[in-house]
Structures are given as structure tokens and as C-alpha cells.
């Protein structure tokens, strides 16, 4: 089983009110491979948060099915197995921290799972070290910065030893420093601990750092591929109300004016290299140089 999360023709609509049934998800088929780093991009109301909530059975599909590690999320008897496999981190760190002391908050999930005390201690320490908050273990969460709080929230989920973490706009309420802290933590978890990461976001630059990018609009998946592939479809993204990274935007604009530039330059360096190549007329000397 290499797919940790699988959605099949997933549909979700809220109960009909005044004769209209608001369809939030309209046939989503998605396979998320274990160990991958997937970003889900979409503007407000695209259904991306609703999709996230289906990944650990907070919401159940009104049509189709969702499988977590092969378990149907509609199976109530396996609810705890589903939730401990897929951890969830939300936007507002204040509203997901349960305890007044960092380490006691991180211990909340393993306590719920009935893990023996010595094992909880180890898990709490490991989780806090993994997010770089070990030295704050005895602090009160409300005295931490936003980025630190969010890292505590991530540690709180890690302590369940999940195979996958779904983060629903975890950086939306953070300042640039906090955002970077959280992103670095997520990437590190994915690279070193092999945790599958699903990052729900509306920031292009965050999405660009993933291995795979899924773009949602109107409850449907409108683009799916590596960030380079997806962002090169500039018109598609613009048609669903999303922008592209500034580097791509620049290349795209210049291309429209007849210049031969690639559309997959996601970093400043790549963009600079592409422009350099264009100006010096160099051929085929892409990113192999010392940039």
C-alpha cells in the first residue's frame, strides 16, 4: 500500500438550505503517496479546507469514498486508527493548544491513545526536538510567538506518531519569520522523518516548495503535477483566480512579448539564470552552472 490517502469520486455538499444544495467538493480523485510532500493550492471557497477535513474523518463524504491507509473513513470503529495515521494542524495555533504548559499539550494526543507514561515522555521529547521547541517544553504557550505556537501544535500532532500530517493553512496567521520557521519544520519532517505532508495553502511560494502541487477550484482538481509543470500553465491558474510566482509571471510576460523564456523558473536563481542565458544567447546551459 503506497498510497496513504486515496479519495475516489469524493463529493461533499452541506445540507440543502432554501432549496439550494451547496456543493463544496465535486468529484475529487486524488492519491497521495506515502512519504510525499503535496501542496493543495486554491483561493477561498475552492474546497481545499473541506478536502483536508475529509482526510482524517472530521467530515465524511456525501458521495464517493476516502481511504486512509486502506481504511474507509466512514468506518466508525476504526476512527482512532484513522486519526492517529493522519494528524491535522489548523490555521490558528491558539485554538488547538489544549494545555497551559508546552509539554503537557504535546502529551495530549498520546494520553488520549493510552500510551504508557514512559513512552509518552519519550514521544513528547522527540516531537519537541523534531520541531526545535525542546528548550521551551516548560513554557506557557500563550507567551510564545505565533511561529513557535504553531510548531508546538505540530509537535502535538507528531506525538501521535502519524504517518501523514495535513496542515490547513498553518502559516496564514503568522508573520514572515514565523512562516519560515513553520515551513522549514514541515520540510525537515518530510525529508528526514519521511512523514507524508499535505500542505493546504494559498501562498504560491509555499506551494512551490512541494514535490507535487494540486490546484483546486470550485470543488474540483484543475491542475495536478510538479510545481514546475503546474505553474507553467499560467493561463489555467489565472482563470481560477490564482496568481503564479513572480519569477514565472515575469518570464510569462516576457514570453508573450516574443522572448524565448522557460516557464518553470520558480526560484530567483533559476529566473536569473534563464534571463542570463537569454541575454548571452547561451544554449542548453540551464541550471547546471554554479548558481
Amino acid at each position, binding site marked *: 500500500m503506497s498510497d496513504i490517502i486515496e479519495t475516489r469520486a469524493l463529493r461533499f455538499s452541506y445540507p440543502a438550505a432554501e432549496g439550494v444544495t451547496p456543493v463544496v467538493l465535486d468529484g475529487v480523485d486524488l492519491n497521495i503517496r506515502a512519504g510525499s510532500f503535496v501542496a493543495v493550492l486554491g483561493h477561498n471557497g475552492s474546497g481545499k479546507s473541506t478536502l483536508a477535513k475529509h482526510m*482524517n474523518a*472530521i467530515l465524511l463524504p456525501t458521495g464517493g469514498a476516502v481511504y486512509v491507509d486502506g481504511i474507509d473513513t466512514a468506518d466508525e470503529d476504526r476512527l*482512532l486508527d484513522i*486519526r*492517529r495515521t493522519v*494528524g*491535522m494542524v*489548523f490555521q*490558528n495555533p*491558539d*485554538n*488547538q*493548544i*489544549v*494545555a*497551559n*504548559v508546552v*509539554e*503537557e499539550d504535546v*502529551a*495530549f*494526543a*498520546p*494520553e*488520549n*491513545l*493510552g*500510551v*504508557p*507514561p514512559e513512552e*509518552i*515522555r519519550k514521544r*513528547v521529547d522527540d516531537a519537541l526536538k523534531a520541531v526545535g521547541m525542546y528548550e521551551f517544553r*516548560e*513554557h*506557557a504557550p*500563550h507567551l510564545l510567538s505565533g511561529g513557535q505556537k504553531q510548531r508546538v*501544535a505540530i509537535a*502535538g*500532532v507528531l506525538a*501521535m506518531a502519524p504517518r501523514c500530517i495535513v496542515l490547513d493553512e498553518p502559516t496564514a496567521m503568522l508573520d514572515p519569520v514565523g512562516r519560515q520557521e513553520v515551513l522549514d519544520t514541515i520540510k525537515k519532517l518530510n525529508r528526514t522523518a519521511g512523514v507524508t505532508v499535505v500542505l493546504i495553502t494559498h501562498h504560491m511560494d509555499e506551494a512551490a516548495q512541494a514535490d507535487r502541487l494540486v490546484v483546486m477550484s470550485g470543488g474540483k482538481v484543475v491542475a495536478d503535477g510538479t510545481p514546475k509543470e503546474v505553474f507553467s500553465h499560467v493561463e489555467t491558474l489565472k482563470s481560477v483566480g490564482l496568481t503564479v510566482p513572480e519569477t514565472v509571471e515575469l518570464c510569462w510576460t516576457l514570453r508573450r512579448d516574443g522572448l524565448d523564456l522557460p516557464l518553470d523558473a520558480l526560484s530567483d536563481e533559476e529566473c536569473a539564470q534563464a534571463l542570463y542565458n537569454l541575454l548571452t544567447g547561451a544554449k542548453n546551459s540551464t541550471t547546471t552552472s554554479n548558481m
Partner: protein
Amino acid sequence: MALKDITLGQYFPGNTVIHRLDPRTKLLFTVLYIVALFSAKGIAAYAVLFAVLCACIAISKIQPKTILRGMKPILFIIVLTAVLNIFYTPGTPIWQWKFLKITVEGLWAAFFMVLRISFLITCTFMLTYTTSPIMLTDGLERLLGPLKKLHVPVHELSMIMSIALRFIPTLIEETDKIMSAQKARGADFDTGNLFQKAKALVPLLVPLFISAFRRAEELATAMECRCYHGGEGRTRLRQLRFRGADAAALLLGGALVAAVLILRSIGL
């Protein structure tokens, strides 16, 4: 009064003997202290109680300033009680003006009442300052454990309490923010009579309540995501352990009650 001054229910982490005591011990000791406090009659008993309180504060390394700051919001109640006691206790008058009179008994009663309320507040402050809310509710849950047999939802109640304590600083911060926002738009919280002041609180309370409900909903989801499913089969990071220091503290508490009762019986 700045909202930041409200320290009620806060925990100051530390590593003193008092911090390390079992929460059940601290709860029971607080109960014993309150029993002693309400049995105290004379100045000697209050002196003993004061000495114990001071010793606790000194050992726990809590700043006396912190406690005084925590007292500020209830200053009004203390003053009101004192005034009522001064004027309404019958006895030998030492000053009289029309229907107002001050009696010797009234002064004493007021003095003791002020001491009693201050000690009561301080000792409960000491409990929450030195015990993390989770430990506190843990202790409470264990102490009340036998009530589970009578279908009292002990775990749920202690969970509610610990979350309430956890959100006090968050909601205070939020209140401050809403107040500033409303002030920036011309709201006036400080002038007018009592009725006008109460009315001025509406634009503060409505957004606060809405936000609190939203927080509650998000927190509930987050807790469910972390596999919360009630008290059944839960384990704890920190095991409660009854040590020698706990026995000593409880003996001290018992001795305190006994001492106060003895002082009372000999009229001190």
C-alpha cells in the same frame, strides 16, 4: 485597571518543593487551610495562618508583588466588606453621626474579615500559581474519582475546568484587542454612570462571545483530531506520586487546623 493585571488562574512554572508536591496534597492542604481560616477567631490564630501563608510564598519563590497585583481586581469587594462590617456591627460605639456609627466590635470584625478574604484569595492563588492547570484538574479528577460510581461526570468536569483555565489568558488578550478596536472607533468604556458603563460593554461582549464560540468549535475539532474520546483509557504523562513531602504537608495542614481550634477554644 489594565486587563493584564488579572492573574487569576495563572500558573508560574518553577521547581520548588511546593511546585513538586502532588496536586492532591495541595488541594487537600488548601481545603484544610480554608477550614482553619474559617475557624480562626482571635489575633493569635490569624498570626499563625499568616505565618504559614508567608512561609508558603517564600518557599515557592512567587513574587509577593504578583500576589498583590492579583488582589487588585477584588479590592472593591474587600473594601465593601470592610465598610459594611464597620458600620453595621452592633456594639460599643466610638463614633456616631446621625444614623452612622462605628463600633469597636465593628472595627475588629472588619479587620478580621479583610484578613480572612485576603488570606482566602492568597491561598487559592498559591494553589493555581504553583500547580499547572492540568496537574490541578488531574488531582481533582483523582480526588473526586469515587464520585464516578454515582455517575458524576468527573473527567468531563475536570476537562472543562482545565480548558477554561487554559483560555483565560487568550480571552484576556482578545478582550484587550477588542477594547482597543472599539476605542479607536470612539467607544467609551470609562465615563458615565453604572448603567451607561454596563451598556458600553455590549460592543465588547458581543464580539468576545462570538469569538469564544468560534474558538470552542475549532478547539473541539482539534481535540478530536488528536484522538480525544473522553476519559476512558486515558493515560497521563505525569504520574501522580505521593511522596514524603506530601505526607509532611498534609500533617502540617492537619496540625494547622488543630492549632487554630485549640487557640479558638482558649479564646485567642
